[in-house]
């Protein structure tokens, strides 16, 4: 079977999850490779979650939060942004291309943008090919 | 250079017959933008309102733009605060006429009815007196009918040959024309001084004086700028009036000996045809304007100053008495011809003396000169630096 990447996506409850819902209600088609996990705030995204996703075989991880300044909890998205840069460095050291992790801001009205993002990331991951997670784990 | 604002100026302007609606102007600029006659650097009426609100007298004296307005009324119709900018421009023209007039008479005429009526009555009486003393009706006037049954108009004076009478009238015409022209020209020079010379930011190249000159003549005769207004009827009316004036001036002053002859020319004679055209033009304009002013049908005729009415009445009387002279002449009624002729002059002379240099009529001269002066200023203004906006097209 042709390789299809799998993306685990963490969406904040207030903006991005609603945005993804909007993509649905407006019937905007996008790549089926994305699997959504709802969190209350992008600030809740623990590095362990990202590692777990890669460990379980995800080819990419997408974190979406409210636009800067829009966070329901004031600044959770900034906390996430800080952490995001660290996790990228970390996975790179583990041999996972940092491009496999993305952080994007999706508001509740950006259903279309969410769909485009899903397509774009799927296409990027197709180019990168699968993560050889076994090798990664062995090396570590 | 800074200007001291003058809160008293509004009172001064009020004397020239304008309400205070303009004080409600909140400077949205709609009037300037809606006007078909404004240009990139020719800004009115808003800018004028601003100067008036602040009472910047010097700036107003140098403000040429009111003369470039032909009062189509669009600004007043669309003004969001009903500040009546069109009428303000009209009042400003009256005010400026008085500013240009160095004799101070214009101001007296505009602001005092007794001065104006007194002046008119004095000259009317003078004409009547001159005729009754020096040019009385000859006793056998009833005989002065030529073969074709028309009155021999030059032979009606007791003790005076027809040719002498014509030259007396011709001399009178020329003297009056000279006085009036002298006053008018000196006022225009005054206007030139205030508008062009006092503006130190302007250096007019000599060439511009000549280039602009043809525009002056053209505009004087056609009032062509008027035609840019949305309502072309006003322009048509003014064109009729203006050509009528010019013809009358030509036949009565320049060509008087050919015009005022003992023979009554046949109806198709060029003189009579021209005369009929001119009479029609003036009469048509008068009737239309008078009806408009009474009905207040159009925005520009909604407010009438006393001088507006006086002008219409005087011109109307002149025209009617002129027509009567003509009718009595061809009907062979010498005495009636003589008396209406005297009345005709008794109306015409004061009218010309008041209106041409000091009042309503003068705007026909100021307007083309204003166009000329603004062309001069345009040629003499340093180009303004680009303000950084996307290019504006004018």
């Amino acid at each position, binding site marked *: 079977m042709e390789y299809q990447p799998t993306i685990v996506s963490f969406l904040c409850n207030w903006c991005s999850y609603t945005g993804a819902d909007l993509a*649905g209600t407006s019937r905007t088609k996008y790549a089926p490779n994305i699997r959504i996990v709802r*969190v209350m705030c992008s600030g809740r995204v623990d590095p362990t979650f990202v590692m777990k996703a890669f460990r379980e075989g*995800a080819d990419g991880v997408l974190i979406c939060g409210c636009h800067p300044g829009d966070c329901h909890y004031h600044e959770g998205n900034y906390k996430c942004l800080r952490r995001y840069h660290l996790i990228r460095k970390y996975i790179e050291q583990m041999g996972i291309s940092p491009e496999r992790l993305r952080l994007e801001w999706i508001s509740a009205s950006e259903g279309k943008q969410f769909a485009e993002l899903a397509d774009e990331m799927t296409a990027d991951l197709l180019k990168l090919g699968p993560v050889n997670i076994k090798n990664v784990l062995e090396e570590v | 250079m800074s200007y001291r604002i003058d809160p008293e100026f509004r009172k001064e302007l009020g004397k020239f017959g304008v309400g205070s609606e303009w004080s409600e102007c909140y*400077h949205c600029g709609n009037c300037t933008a809606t006007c078909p006659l404004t240009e990139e650097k020719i800004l009115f009426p808003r800018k004028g309102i601003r100067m008036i609100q602040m009472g910047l007298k010097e700036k107003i004296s140098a403000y040429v733009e009111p003369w470039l307005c032909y009062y189509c009324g669009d600004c007043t119709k669309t003004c969001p605060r009903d500040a009546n900018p069109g009428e303000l421009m009209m009042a400003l023209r009256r005010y400026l006429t008085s500013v240009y007039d160095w004799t101070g008479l214009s101001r007296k005429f505009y602001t005092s009815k007794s001065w104006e009526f007194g002046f008119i009555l004095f000259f009317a009486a003078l004409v009547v007196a001159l005729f009754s003393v020096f040019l009385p009706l000859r006793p056998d006037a009833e005989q002065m009918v030529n073969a074709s049954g028309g009155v021999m108009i030059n032979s009606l004076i007791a003790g005076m040959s027809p040719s002498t009478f014509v030259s007396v009238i011709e001399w009178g015409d020329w003297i009056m024309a000279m006085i009036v022209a002298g006053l008018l020209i000196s006022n225009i020079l005054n206007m030139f001084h205030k508008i062009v010379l006092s503006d130190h930011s302007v250096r007019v190249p000599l060439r511009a004086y000549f280039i602009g000159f043809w525009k002056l003549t053209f505009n004087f005769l056609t009032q062509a700028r008027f035609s840019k207004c949305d309502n072309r009827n006003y322009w048509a009316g003014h064109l009729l009036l203006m050509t009528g004036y010019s013809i009358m001036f030509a036949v009565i002053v320049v060509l008087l000996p050919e015009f005022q002859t003992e023979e009554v020319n046949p109806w198709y004679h060029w003189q009579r045809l021209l005369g009929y055209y001119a009479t029609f033009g003036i009469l048509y304009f008068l009737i239309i304007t008078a009806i408009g002013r009474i009905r207040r049908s159009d925005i520009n005729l909604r407010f009438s100053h006393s001088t507006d009415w006086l002008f219409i009445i005087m011109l109307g009387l002149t025209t009617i008495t002129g027509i009567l002279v003509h009718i009595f002449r061809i009907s062979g009624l010498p005495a009636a011809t003589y008396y209406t002729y005297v009345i005709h002059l008794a109306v015409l002379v004061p009218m010309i003396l008041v209106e041409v240099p000091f009042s309503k009529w003068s705007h026909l001269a100021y307007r083309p000169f204003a166009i000329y002066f603004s062309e001069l200023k345009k040629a003499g203004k340093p180009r303004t630096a680009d303000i950084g906006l996307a290019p504006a097209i004018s």
Partner: protein
Amino acid sequence: MEEPRIGVYVCWCGTNISKTVDVEQVTAAVSKLPHVIIARNYKYMCSDPGQDLILKDIREHQLNRVVVSACSPRIHELTFRKVLVNAGLNPYLFEMANIREQVSWVHDDRDIATGKATSLVKAAIQRVAHHEPLEKRRVDIHPATLIIGGGITGLTAAMEIADSGNQVHLIEKSGRLGGMVSLLHQTHPHLTAGNELIQPLIDKAQPHPKVRVWLNSQIEEVTGYVGNFRARIRSGEEVEELDCGNIIVATGTKPFDPSQIPEYGYGMLPGVITSLEFEEMLRKGKIVTKDGESPCDIAIIHCVGSRNMEYHPYCSRVCCTTALKFANQIRAALPDAGIYQLYADMRSFGKGCEEFYMRTSRRGVIFMMFDQKGKLPVVKPNNTGGRGRLLISTRELLSGEEIEIPADLVILMVASEAREDARETAHLTGISLCGNQFFIEKHPKLDPVATTTDGVFIAGSCQGPKDIADSVSQARAAAARVLASILCGSVEVEVTTAVVNDKVCCGCQTCISVCPYHAIHFDEEKRVSEVNEILCKGCGTCGSACPTGAIHARHFTDDQILSQIEGLLSPITLKAMEMAMED
């Protein structure tokens, strides 16, 4: 924890889901998963028969966890939680898989959609196995309310609350009630006497049995949380402690001191006064210069201290209309005086105010525009003769000319600025300040009177300059919140809060630094962090920052999310499903 017994329900949503997702196949694929007792599909799970189906199964099969795989939880999570409650289960033992908005409506390929839907349902099943029952908690509300500030805002709020039968403590720093409004001779735009508005309120408040007015008093300390605050109040030498359930901060503003602006010569030139000094003059009934003469020319300069980066960047909102009011009052008293307004933009925006501007301009008032951000007008003595003891020179923007304005009296429309003790008040009551030292509301659009601290409200111009009508609106808005909480008697607090496992906590205090609500404090005795569950809003940021995993974000625990990820990524190939079908 008891053994999970999970019921799984896959919804067709008519054809909305079933058109793209093979519902039968999904049901079959998940039915064999561990802990799944029963898996069903139905046309409309949200319909009454659908809900009854779940209810019946819970009872019959002793289910203790439920997964519904249907539309977005944003739409029907509450509906199904209610079903669990009706069946006697804790509502949090429920999870929804969103296979409509996230699958059937966004994908076309039936096989792929079915596969993805199966993963989502599987993830939900794995997650729900780790769900814990959570209990809703409520905090009792003390019926008394503390209002700081005895101006029109504080008085209005006080009367609103007291008239409905609840105790109010009205704390006023100065010796009198009425604040700024009592200093106004008249108000815009109808020139109603300021006293006519404020005096009846004061007369009603002072003897009111439910209002205790504290003059010359100040708050020294506030402790506690929503519903249960305790405030220490100093009144002269005496100190008293009060209990209250809610706090309304209505401390207002103070006028800007224009002597900072050298151009205007305030304090140096005798004819230059502030708008408040002019109000006082109006109240006394005579407009006079310092020498007691009636001025011939009066100039009013707008935006003094406002809209200028050197002083305050913001607009003070009321000065334009106040200046128009002044023009009317001057014209009424001095029919022949020259009145000049130097303005930047005429902001007469309120109801009837544009009309007020129009009427004012009819009364011989000269309006001139200056650049409030650039070169300010300069006021200097008139040494050149002519009208006016003072001359104001400026560039008038609407004509482009440099002009001089004669004036015997110059009125400076001074900005409203935050009180000098704003920071202190904010600190005491647990609210924050914006860059201009005004108090920050919870949400600038939809929650202008609440703050990030529950039970503390702000009203009136302490939140930003405001006219009387807008202040009064905010006063009542704050009162509405307070009344609602008093009437309810208690307030519900977030259930999905964080909680610290003090056995694991290493006391590093990372969580404290990331919490936006200051809901975590450090227990010095136990050397561990502790979450105040009343202040916590459940964002979970602390949970992801905790290096030892000691903090749990309830309902979004690490276990729950990690197992959800596992479920999402467990290999469900078509083959596996086919095998499941065959079984």
